[in-house]
């Protein structure tokens, strides 16, 4: 459901929540939700119903059903990060994004499945089992925000929140044929987001259509004194911006982004670019020589930051583990038992690349590559409104199909560069190959989410992708 018909649909929000709870039950096999907050959703729906009756003013998200990735802190509702470590953790405060969407009268349906601590590209590393792709249940949903993508795709909710450290919003958006936007670093507060890699993490919106994506971005954006990396740049009216024309926009197609890509995927993405050309954009090929170094640089930096961030999990203050006996032995036992394999691997590699003798060669070198990538992007944005690549190099794979961790890392080859440079990017549905979705990725200049939304909306008008379900 899009923004335009929200008002008609909220006539009886209670009825809608009941229908959605049935829908979630019917689609349980997809494993999109870790926790369904039926009580909280019904309570909010009753409140909205009452306020409609009274003729009270309602918030921008009134009546919209929202799903929230399970690494975003929700007061009184379990927040597990899909990890055994936080299986019973119930936050005592809301993330800033939660405060903001609640203040606009959203109805929160529940918390969605993800790769453990957002470390993965398919939602297969979740302690609660993989989320299934909406279009083929034997295949992965993408990740790490797989649950948030599938909750939208299956029609359980209107919009959802994901988080994106190296592609975790755009990847599952692409694999489930929805829109997913990773905002500029600093656009949305990370207060209350359980940290994976703090210099890269960003919360963002997911929806079937562009206007709903814009609306949710509008609500969650802006400076927050509890996150000193948020900036004071004014928040535009994204919904109005989205409707503006795109004639004369220059889109640079990054040629390196089409290397090592399934030809069927490339063809679909070129088709999408042709549609944009017909809609009035100028499409040109550009080169980003350092793009090929983005993936190793990203993994080194992300692992280094994760090894530090996850040091806090000792079971003593949150996580509720028994800590009797010798402290260090218990610490090792809890971390060994409660972290999954991929999380341990990243903590291990992060510790290694930061250790004496290796830090300069790996971590510092990766940070230098990061600056080169940043500089390359900034140069291109002097001439182009947006840059394009496929979102994913392949079609959704079968659950359990990828043989090694490195094979999984390679799936992020298109998405990680913008995280290193702190840029915004969107994945837009670009059609299907053998009934499996393909996504077009568009990257924008810092704080220019509006351009990405405008292009997405123009493309949506041409193709009607929000109705491909």
């Amino acid at each position, binding site marked *: 459901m899009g923004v335009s018909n929200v008002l008609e649909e909220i006539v009886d929000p209670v009825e809608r929540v009941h229908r959605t709870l049935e829908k979630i039950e019917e689609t349980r096999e997809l494993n999109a939700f870790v926790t369904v907050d039926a009580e909280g959703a019904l309570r909010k729906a009753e409140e909205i119903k009452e306020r409609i009756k009274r003729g009270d003013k309602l918030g921008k998200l009134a009546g919209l059903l929202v799903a929230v990735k399970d690494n975003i802190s929700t007061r009184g509702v379990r927040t597990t990060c899909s990890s055994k470590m936080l299986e019973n953790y*119930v936050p*005592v405060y809301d993330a800033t994004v939660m405060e903001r969407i609640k203040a606009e009268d959203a109805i929160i349906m529940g918390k969605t499945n993800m790769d453990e601590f957002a470390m993965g590209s398919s939602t297969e590393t979740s302690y609660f089992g993989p989320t299934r792709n909406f279009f083929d249940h034997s295949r992965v949903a993408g990740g790490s925000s797989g649950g948030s993508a599938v909750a939208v795709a299956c029609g359980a909710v209107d919009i959802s929140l994901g988080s994106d450290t190296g592609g975790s919003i755009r990847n599952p958006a692409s694999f489930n044929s929805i829109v997913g936007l990773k905002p500029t*670093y*600093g656009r949305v507060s990370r207060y209350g987001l359980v940290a994976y890699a703090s210099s890269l993490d960003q919360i963002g919106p997911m929806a079937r259509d562009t206007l709903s994506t814009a609306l949710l971005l509008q609500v969650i954006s802006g*400076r927050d*004194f509890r996150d*000193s*990396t948020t*900036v*004071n740049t004014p928040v535009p009216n994204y919904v109005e911006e989205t409707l503006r024309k795109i004639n004369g926009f220059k889109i640079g197609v990054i040629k390196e982004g089409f290397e090592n890509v399934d030809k069927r995927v490339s063809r679909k993405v070129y088709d999408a670019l042709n549609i944009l050309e017909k809609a009035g954009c100028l499409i040109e090929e550009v080169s980003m020589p350092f793009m*090929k*170094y983005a993936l*190793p*640089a990203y*993994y*080194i930096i992300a692992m280094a930051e994760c*090894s530090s961030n996850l040091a806090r999990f000792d*079971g*003593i*203050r*949150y996580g*509720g*583990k*028994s*800590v*009797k006996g*010798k*402290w*260090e*032995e*218990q*610490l*090792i036992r809890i*971390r*060994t038992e409660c972290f999954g394999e991929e999380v*341990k*691997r990243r*903590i*291990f*590699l992060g*510790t*290694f*690349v930061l*250790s004496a003798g290796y830090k300069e*060669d*790996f971590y510092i*070198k990766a*940070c*230098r*590559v*990061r*600056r*080169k990538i*940043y*500089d390359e992007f900034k140069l291109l944005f002097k001439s182009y409104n947006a840059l394009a690549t496929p979102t994913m190099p392949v079609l959704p794979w079968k659950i359990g199909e990828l043989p*090694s*961790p*490195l094979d999984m*890392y390679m799936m992020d080859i298109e998405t990680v560069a913008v995280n290193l*440079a702190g840029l915004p990017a969107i994945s837009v549905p670009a059609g299907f190959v053998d009934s499996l979705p393909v996504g077009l990725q568009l990257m924008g200049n810092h704080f220019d989410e509006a351009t990405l939304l405008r292009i997405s909306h123009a493309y949506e008008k041409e193709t009607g992708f929000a109705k491909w379900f």
Partner: protein
Amino acid sequence: MSRKTAISREEMLHYARLCRISLGEHEIDRLLKDVNEILEYFETIRSLQLDVEPMTYVTSVSETLREDEPAETLSEEDVFKNAGEKQEKWFVSGQVWG
């Protein structure tokens, strides 16, 4: 001189210890194989000669610091809500010394 990084079984156990994670016998070989495969991939940037300053963050925090004013903090009940064990106003941890 070959600068290729590969870690040995002994080094791996050392790093695991730094991470406060123990590895079962069956895990060691698999992790060693995966880690060395990944490190080999990381080699692609190791030999690059780059004359730029390292970038650790894309934004500066200098403009966004707030005033240092007293504000509400969590209640005692909330602070201990997710604790493994507590005694009065203390978190219980394992024995640290001795």
